[in-house]
């Protein structure tokens, strides 16, 4: 993509500008929380539990208190009456169960990594040294680590609760009036196809480790935090600690990534606040990478059982989804709601007459889970897109044909789905046609067949993902109906400075998204001013007092809409002044490209001149306040629904099991793009993150509940060396629910790519009798699947006699075999029965 010459006059919206924030973010020469140095600042080191579940019988802090430069040591006993309980904002059912969630554990720890004591010292090193001297006695308790065992309540993660089930949630289309009863469909169906998929546990692994500084020395407590949600944090801290909200100022300076991992109110934020208040001095906490992997919230971690009722010709009749979702040890800010964000998305782009979604939220003695890029929708998209491809193979249809047979046709929008959403716009045919054209689908199918027939050891696989997702969280009314603890609006204000420059204040809180550039483009076009004249301010509750922050691909469609709404108010405010100065009737004033003109004449006045006129205030209409500034709050009327067709080509080395991605085509419909270059960047980054779930990442615990993947040596993130150049394009059906026609793009790549990759790998080896491999698709797992399939095939049909994909059914085994085979290949213990870690690791 070429970058436009920034000096030519053209519309800003739609222009692929490079981001104005890049220079400082890429060089790192900016204000990260950990850069902050305040006079007399103290430093925190946390002492964390090595045990997954244990009673704290004694903590001896005397030696640590005597250590050089130590100011104080705090334990749970010291703060138990003032630390409150960390908030969960989303009780998904009225009888949701949850344990108290202390910032510092008081008498029991429930996961390895939980804070048990805090050392406050004059230097980071003194704090770390003294933390080694804190002596904690534990009595170990039985820990529950395996999600299925936890759901069976064999061992209880929190004995006082009496169960590991935090919440049981059901959604039935026949009860909400959107469809039939899925049990009827299953009973009467020609084909009942059942599969179980595993969403492994992931770690958000943002680039900047979390950091918090609290300065208690002014009238307000000032907290700097590497957070996605300064506004939510302020409110929640006030509620948790009983501090007046007006006494709290939260600043999110430049934040180095989040991916949902910084959508949280953390123990360490509370701890740093308590430490600052206790000592009366500024205090800083910055986590190590090890602490970040261990104790910052994790993501995903579900078992998904899907039952599809269908006709033999591929027509879908009903879908039943049963989930087990691992909460980990506690409920964080939206932990409980994450699986529910997928409740309406399993039906995806398909017209399914009946639908049921059932979810059990389950506690285990592991790090708690919460939002991670996509939050609920990647899980749903993975399961349905895997299911459709597996189902196609089962009935002997091309996986794309099954999709085309069942998807919502473009002329059917707006479309009310079986799960209760209304999709406003979309064109799956167009995106798919473009993707197939770019990919060379037919030719690659032929090459795939050639390699198989030639007996080559490196096989080709083609993976499809025709995804949709829900962005722009969210209409406040809908959130209320879902028992979410807040609204989904966003706020913006515009300050017209006397020199004609403009400050845009946004409640969105960027942490890498490029809001400063995109919002400037929006305002530059709307008010007809140069891009360079617009400054975007955010991330400080004193500067941007109202906001709902950044997550759920909401910033542009909700926050951007608020900015446009505020800009429109500025125009409306300026019109009477323009009329006054131009001695015209206000109804005759027109506004275009920054100029207010009298209809039918060439007399006019620029918006900058009007800003100056209000500053001087020498000559205003009667009753007009001397200001053009305006603010607006935008509450969306609906979610937005990006979609797209992604096609992946992989090579599977059958000798080693290694998967190599060789081609990836992503055609996304995100509606109109304000800045196509930023959108493209979001797609690329999202793709890598989703591909990484498929191939590389997994948080693994051993049988004792210790995180084995506790560093980047074992938590294998990809680098540029592991990826390929993606081929991307966009089709456009504008969203109808916001002025821009934008749909949101922050999570699309992540949501779409994971099933595309797994579908491709399974497609490469399906003719060998393999219908699932558990993520991440390590070479070992792929190789072992091939080995065990080979053994089964020898007993059944030789691989060479299996029909090839594309010209005949390649899976004509009964559906019970599919399920059995899936369990054998991907079951919890079958892959590496003699390896450590074992049970808790669920390898």
């Amino acid at each position, binding site marked *: 993509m070429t970058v436009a010459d920034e000096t030519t006059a053209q519309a800003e919206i739609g222009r692929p500008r490079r981001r104005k924030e890049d220079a400082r973010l890429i060089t790192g020469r900016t204000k990260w929380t950990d850069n902050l140095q305040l006079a007399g600042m103290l430093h925190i080191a946390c002492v964390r539990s090595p045990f997954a579940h244990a009673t704290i019988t004694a903590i001896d802090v005397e030696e640590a208190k005597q250590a050089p430069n130590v100011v104080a040591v705090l334990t749970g006993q010291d703060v138990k009456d003032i630390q409150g309980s960390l908030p969960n904002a989303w009780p998904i059912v009225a009888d949701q169960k949850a344990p108290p969630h202390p910032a510092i554990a008081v008498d029991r720890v429930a996961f390895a990594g939980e804070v048990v004591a805090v050392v406050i010292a004059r230097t980071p090193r003194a704090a770390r040294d003294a933390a080694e001297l804190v002596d904690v006695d534990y009595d170990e308790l039985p820990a529950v680590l395996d999600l299925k065992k936890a759901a069976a309540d064999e061992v209880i993660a929190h004995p006082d609760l009496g169960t590991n089930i935090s919440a049981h949630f059901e959604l039935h289309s026949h009860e909400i009036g959107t469809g039939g009863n899925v049990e009827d469909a299953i009973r009467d169906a020609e084909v009942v196809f059942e599969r179980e998929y595993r969403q492994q546990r992931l770690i958000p692994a943002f680039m900047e480790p979390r950091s918090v500084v609290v300065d208690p020395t002014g009238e307000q407590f000032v907290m700097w935090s590497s957070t996605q949600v300064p506004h939510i944090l302020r409110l929640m801290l006030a509620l948790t600690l009983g501090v007046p909200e007006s006494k709290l100022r939260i600043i999110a300076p430049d934040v180095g990534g989040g991916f949902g991992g910084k959508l949280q109110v953390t123990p360490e934020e509370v701890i740093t606040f308590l430490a600052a208040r206790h000592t009366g001095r500024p205090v800083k906490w910055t986590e190590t990478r090890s602490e970040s992997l261990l104790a910052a919230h994790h993501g995903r971690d579900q078992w998904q059982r899907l039952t599809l009722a269908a006709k033999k010709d591929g027509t879908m009749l009903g879908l039943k989804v049963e989930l087990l979702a691992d909460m980990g040890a506690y409920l964080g800010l939206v932990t409980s709601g994450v699986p529910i964000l997928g409740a309406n998305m399993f039906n995806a782009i398909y017209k399914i007459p009946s639908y049921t979604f059932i979810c059990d939220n389950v506690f285990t003695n592991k790090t708690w889970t919460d939002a991670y890029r996509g939050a609920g929708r990647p899980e749903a998209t993975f399961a349905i897109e895997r299911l459709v491809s597996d189902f196609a193979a089962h009935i002997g249809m091309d996986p794309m044909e099954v999709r085309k047979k069942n998807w919502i046709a473009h002329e059917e929008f707006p479309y009310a789905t079986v799960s209760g959403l209304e999709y406003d716009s979309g064109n799956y045919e167009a995106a798919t046609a473009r993707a197939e054209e770019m990919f060379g689908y037919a030719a690659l199918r032929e090459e795939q067949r050639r390699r198989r027939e030639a007996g080559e050891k490196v096989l080709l696989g083609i993976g499809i993902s025709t995804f949709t997702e829900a962005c722009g969280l969210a209409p406040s009314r809908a959130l209320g109906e879902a028992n979410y603890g807040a609204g989904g609006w966003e706020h913006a204000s515009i300050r017209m400075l006397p020199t004609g420059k403009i400050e845009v204040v946004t409640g969105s809180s960027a942490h890498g998204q490029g809001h400063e550039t995109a919002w400037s483009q929006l305002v530059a076009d709307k008010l007809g001013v140069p891009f360079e004249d617009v400054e975007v301010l955010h991330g400080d509750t004193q500067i941007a007092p109202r906001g709902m922050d950044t997550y759920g691909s909401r910033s542009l469609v909700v926050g951007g809409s608020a900015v446009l709404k505020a800009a429109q108010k500025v125009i409306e405010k300026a019109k009477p002044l323009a009329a006054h100065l131009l001695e015209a009737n206000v109804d005759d004033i027109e506004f275009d490209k920054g100029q207010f003109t009298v209809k039918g004449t060439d007399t006019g006045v620029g918006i900058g001149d009007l800003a100056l006129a209000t500053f001087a205030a020498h000559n205003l209409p009667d009753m007009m306040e001397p200001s053009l500034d305006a603010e607006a709050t935008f509450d969306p009327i609906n979610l937005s629904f990006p979609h797209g067709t992604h096609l992946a080509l992989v090579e599977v080395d059958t000798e*080693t099991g290694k998967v190599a991605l060789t081609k990836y085509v992503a055609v996304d419909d995100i509606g109109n793009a304000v800045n196509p270059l930023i959108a493209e960047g979001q797609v690329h980054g999202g793709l890598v993150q989703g591909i990484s779930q498929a191939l590389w990442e997994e948080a693994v615990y051993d049988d004792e509940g210790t995180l084995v*993947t506790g560093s980047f040596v074992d938590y294998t993130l990809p*680098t540029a060396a*592991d990826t390929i150049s993606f081929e991307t394009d966009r089709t456009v059906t504008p969203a109808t629910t916001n002025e821009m026609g934008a749909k949101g793009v922050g999570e699309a790549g992540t949501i779409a790519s994971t099933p595309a990759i797994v579908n491709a790998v399974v497609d490469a080896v399906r003719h060998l009798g393999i219908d699932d491999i558990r993520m991440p698709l390590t*070479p070992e797992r792929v190789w072992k699947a091939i080995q065990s399939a080979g053994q089964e095939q020898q007993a059944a049909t030789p691989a060479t006699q299996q029909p090839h994909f594309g010209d005949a059914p390649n899976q004509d085994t009964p559906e019970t075999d599919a399920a059995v085979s899936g369990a054998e290949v991907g079951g919890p213990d079958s892959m590496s029965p003699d390896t450590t870690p074992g049970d808790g690791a669920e390898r």
Partner: protein
Amino acid sequence: MIPAAFDYVAPTSVADALAALAEHGDDAKVLAGGQSLIPILRMRLNTPETVVDLGRIEELRGIREDGDAIVIGAMTPYADVLGSDLVREHLGLLYKAVAEVADPQIRRRGTIGGALVHADPAGDVGAPALALGAEFVITGQGGERTVPAEEFFRDLFETAVEDGELLTAVRFPRHTGWGSHYEKFVRVAHQWSIVAVAAAVRVEGGTIAEARVGLTNMGATPLRAKAVEEALVGKELTEDAVAEACAAAAEGTRPPTDLNGDSDYRRHLATVLTRRAVLAAAGG
């Protein structure tokens, strides 16, 4: 990630370094390029009282010819090995293995000697050193001794370098004109080897005249696949003949089991990768 406090000594000669080690005994750790030791210190997995930094000892750096051997100073960074025409011409296998070590930043700081003495079996220089029959020059206060590669690696993270001694140089016999290849198997590019195979072969008239094969991460130490080497000699350079000779690559190995694969899988990988390494070496 702050290490426990330690004293720091930065001698400028081998003699001073040995004196420092003699003075501090068991409580001292030697710092070479720091690519393994620094993370260990930061995670407080080891808390030495004194760190003896060899980084200022010029005599430990550099690559020179010495008769039939190429001698590489222990403190020579990987990047210098890659930049050396001597290494490229006479030690092609070492060149190819070092090119696969981690990433450019680590290759700039990490040293050949540091990696060999650290003796992580997943490290990438042990197997080529074994395969090429390197000799390890170890210096103590009593003088210098030379240890053959077979005797250098003793166990996990354990070598013939005793307390109070330093590895000062490694002598590699020239393998001029040999074909070589380092077949490294990883899931992501910057990872430690899951398994890797170092192969060097001398081909005469379409037949393998000599072969050297080293295995990375197939046991507590780097290993030499002598049975494979012997089986390869005299074999015609065909895929089937090479595959047959390499089938025994994993014999006698005890590879680890970890998140990247269990020991059976590694044994299988070793046979596949050995075949590929030998064929690639013979082809190039």
